[in-house]
């Protein structure tokens, strides 16, 4: 029933893209220019024009995506075409160069284009890989709900800790305040957990310590639990252990979720800015070609 953008309309644009490639390759093989192949032959011009138009049209996806009342196809159809024709562009543009590369603005445009195409391909892979993982990791909850649940857990834990000696409230409170996950893109992708917690040591001195994956506080609570001799106190500490364990699970899911989302979006931060660089380089390329002509 649902159909992915790769399958859209029986992969119509895959076939169109392939056809474009085949025609380009055949023309390239059949066309034996006097000078070594380059952009200056009639085939070179043709391929170059097609490539430039393709680039402009590929960029236009950003416009179509935001024209919400547009009836010019669906965004899904556009993305499907974008992917397949974008890949075909690699062939078209490469043939257009006639494999003549150098340290110049022409090759710069080509390299940027390859970057954009490469990042696009990477994006498609992400789009195929992450949604399912993201959905199962969330298990039906939204991020906001998970965060709310953590806040609720903390509140309950604080209420219980209020009936225990002071270090417990200190531990739970500081754990809440000093939970630090995410941050920079790198931290999100690596799922770094820089959380800290203030725990009372054997000597009774409270020290701030690293608490990745809630490990420190759980260990500490476990120790307190083992030591407790009073039944009521044991019950309370046990409850805290349960709450913090639930907190750990949620936190892990949130970190994982942020990571999933990052993988799904980060590549676009390369794809789009480099597109603009490409457009710049493309203009320079075209202008310089006509000037030197």
């Amino acid at each position, binding site marked *: *029933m649902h159909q992915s953008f790769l399958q859209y309309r029986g992969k119509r644009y895959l076939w169109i893209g392939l056809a474009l490639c085949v025609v380009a390759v055949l023309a390239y093989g059949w066309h034996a220019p006097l000078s070594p192949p380059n952009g200056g032959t009639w085939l070179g011009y043709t391929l170059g024009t097609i490539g430039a138009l393709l680039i402009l049209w590929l960029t236009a996806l950003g*416009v179509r995506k935001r024209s919400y009342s547009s009836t010019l196809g669906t*965004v899904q159809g556009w993305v499907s075409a974008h992917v397949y024709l974008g890949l075909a562009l690699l062939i078209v543009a490469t043939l257009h160069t006639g494999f003549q590369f150098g340290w110049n603005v022409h090759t710069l445009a080509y390299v940027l284009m390859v970057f954009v195409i490469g990042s696009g391909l990477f994006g498609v892979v992400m789009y195929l890989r992450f*949604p*399912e993982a993201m959905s199962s990791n969330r298990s039906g909850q*939204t*991020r906001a709900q998970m965060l709310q649940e953590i806040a609720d857990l903390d509140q309950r834990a604080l209420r219980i800790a209020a009936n225990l000696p002071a270090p417990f409230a200190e531990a739970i409170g500081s754990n809440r305040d000093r939970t630090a996950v995410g941050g920079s893109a790198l931290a999100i992708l690596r799922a770094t957990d820089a959380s800290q917690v203030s725990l009372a040591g054997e000597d009774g001195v409270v020290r701030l310590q690293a608490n990745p994956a809630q490990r420190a506080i759980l260990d500490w609570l476990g120790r307190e639990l083992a030591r407790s001799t009073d039944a009521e106190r044991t019950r309370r500490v046990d409850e805290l252990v349960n709450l913090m364990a639930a907190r750990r699970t949620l936190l892990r899911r949130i970190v994982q979720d942020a990571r999933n989302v990052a993988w799904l979006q980060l590549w676009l931060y390369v794809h*789009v800015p480099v597109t*603009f660089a490409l457009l710049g380089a493309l203009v320079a390329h075209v202008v310089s070609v006509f000037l030197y002509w």
Partner: protein
Amino acid sequence: MPGVSDKLKIAIVGAGPGGLSSAARAAELGVSHVLLEQSPAHANTIQKYQKGKHVMAEPNVLPLRSPLDFQAGTREAILAEWERGLAKHSVNIRYGAEVVAISGQRPDFTLKLKNGEQLQAETVVFAIGMQGNPRRLGIPGEDLPCVQNTLDDPAEFTGETIVVVGAGDAAIENAVALAKQNTVYILNRSAEFARVKEGNLNLILKSIEEGKVGCFYNAACVSLTATPDGEKPYSLVLNTEQGEAVVPCNRIVARIGAIPPRKFVESCGIKFPSPDPAALPVLSERYESSVPGMYVIGALAGYPLIKQAMNQGYEVTETILGREVEPADEPLLAEKFSRLPYRKSVGQTLALMQQRIPLFTEVNALVFRELMLGSKVHTPAAGEAIFRKNDYTNSFYTIVDGSVEIELVAESGESRRIPLGTGQFFGEMSLLSGRRRSGTVYAGKDCVLIESPRRDILKLMNSDDSVRKVVDRLFIARAIQTGFAPGTPFAELEPVAARAELKRYRKGETLFAEGEEADRLLLIRSGSVSISRRVGEHEVVISYVAAGNYVGEMGLLGKTRRNATVRATVPTEVVSLDAEAFGELLQRNPGLRGEVESTMQKRFASNSRMQGSSESGDMISFLIKQGLGEATDLLLIDETLCVGCDNCETACAETHGGTSRLDRAAGPTFANVHVPTSCRHCEDPHCMRECPPDAIRRAPNGEVYIQDNCIGCGNCERNCPYGVIHMAYAPEPKPGLASWLLFGAGPGPGDVHAKGHVDGHAHGHAHDGKPKAPKKAVKCDMCKDQSGGPACVRACPTGAALRVSPEAFVEFISESAVER
């Protein structure tokens, strides 16, 4: 002020807009009167609106006729204006005067007040509205000032201990809101929270589990006493499972519903045409009830808007004084009738219509007038299509003049035209089933039609049993004709139709069970059913059948036991045909057997596939819980494709004034199919019920949408079980389509409100006191005004968002069952 023994000309019960206007007119004319109001202030219903609510003066076209002024404005301004009016005309209003009994007839009525006082009057005007009286705790101490039935602003209370009595949506919402800054207990008479919205159920269970709200299950109040020296000012004694409990508290919020006024009204002798709770009292054209001299106006009479109530108040006083009044709506009707080829007065035209259309002949003149007010008169050109097959419209047509032809197309492609003449009606099939039109109707020559909206016809059917019977009978005959005997003339089907029975089932009720004797075939007229079979220990849902189809055919073709269980997924009505009647149909239509057999075969194949795949069955069960059983269109998101870009939400907001009507992330998920919070476009939309201006309509393509005449009362928000309606301010001007490409380059055009969908409960108050545009209800309209279909689906880059009809979806699941 007249003494107690003086007989008054008019006693008016209830000082809402209707009563106020009636009393003000009496006062203006210097007639002896009294206006009795149970509460300590006038217009209790309006007093209870949210603070600052913008009250609307619908219907706009209706002129106001009252000594009191009424224009759209804030609740406060309107109440103050009426208060001035009361003083200006020296209306004899008595507050805190609840009428508990009325006896007698014109000109000798005795009204008994709660405090035991008695009043004599020649005539009585009943204007007590439909709000009813809040149910009371029924315990000693229930009158103490700490007991309240409403909660305007939960933030008003802090640090108190509050007991919320009740287990409905209102009680839950109040308890959870109060728990933010108070110690709250909720008192539930039974062992669970049944019959509440799923969102509220989760909310309260979570709050209880987390200890935010304390809950007493299976508990009842015993008594309430003031304890001035105790730790809290009051103390509530409860009877709980563990025995008696005492709760010291500051406040009790009793949300145990309201007693509908009908019982009281009936106790005064006023007759209702049927036991249906939606029935309205029997009234004459001049609002006189079955008790001579006793008049009923306003919401209680079936006119749910302020302006209507006020106009009637004026008219009823005039009528009582023997003055001829032309109803305020006369010009509206005159305008409506102006296109008719007759040169007659409004009254004459109405009479002519009633006389020509047998269905309406017996209907009381007031009710018919009201029906016509809501209806449209059409004079289509010959050959014009009135509606087309598969349209989703649900209005009802009667033929005043000329004729029409109904074109029915059989599955074989063969089409036939059935003529209908003056006095007959059509359109009842979609009206009653909420399904698409089953045929196309073409106008004949010089044809005059009345098109009546669904709500008005349902109201009529509820209050006039004779109309209901006629429509039901014809529905059955036509359903049989379309379903089983397209070739048979209508008249010949009458005997078969007469044998058929109309049955109603509640949600979840069993129509028949596996193993039972199979002796009848059921044609589903509205609602839908699930089919399930026992597989080992479990019952597995194997299919879903929508209205307009039949179930139970297997038995009638020779097999004797039911091989599956059929349950109603939503309130469902079926036409039940016994073996004999069906046999007769088989005789009349030799092709029928083959048709039924082929349907059966198809079902067999799909059933056995589904039986082997419990996952598909679970999927159907899951979706039935999400409203599949009554949906016409569901938004489903495939979580294996959704990248979470929220372009769907942005697209919705962008095409609908800045507020998204869908919340993608919210909502349940099963096996990678996610049902976001978005309208299901129900066949029998819950939201339509109780919409005072009848602002919620269904468009030809099935979209349930809200018109501009919404008055923002919030009834629909409360009534929708899927939490997809919310109240929102009219859109604010938005930034242009600038800086669209670079990420993070300022708020994009869609971002301002894209996340502005409200979390389901928009008990918002007008902030900062600034007058804002009125809040109105917003919901998905399936982009009916956009070309190209729903923007959410069109904007999804990966193909994850999809809108489907439930049938298509079930078919898809059962077809792919083997592959799974």
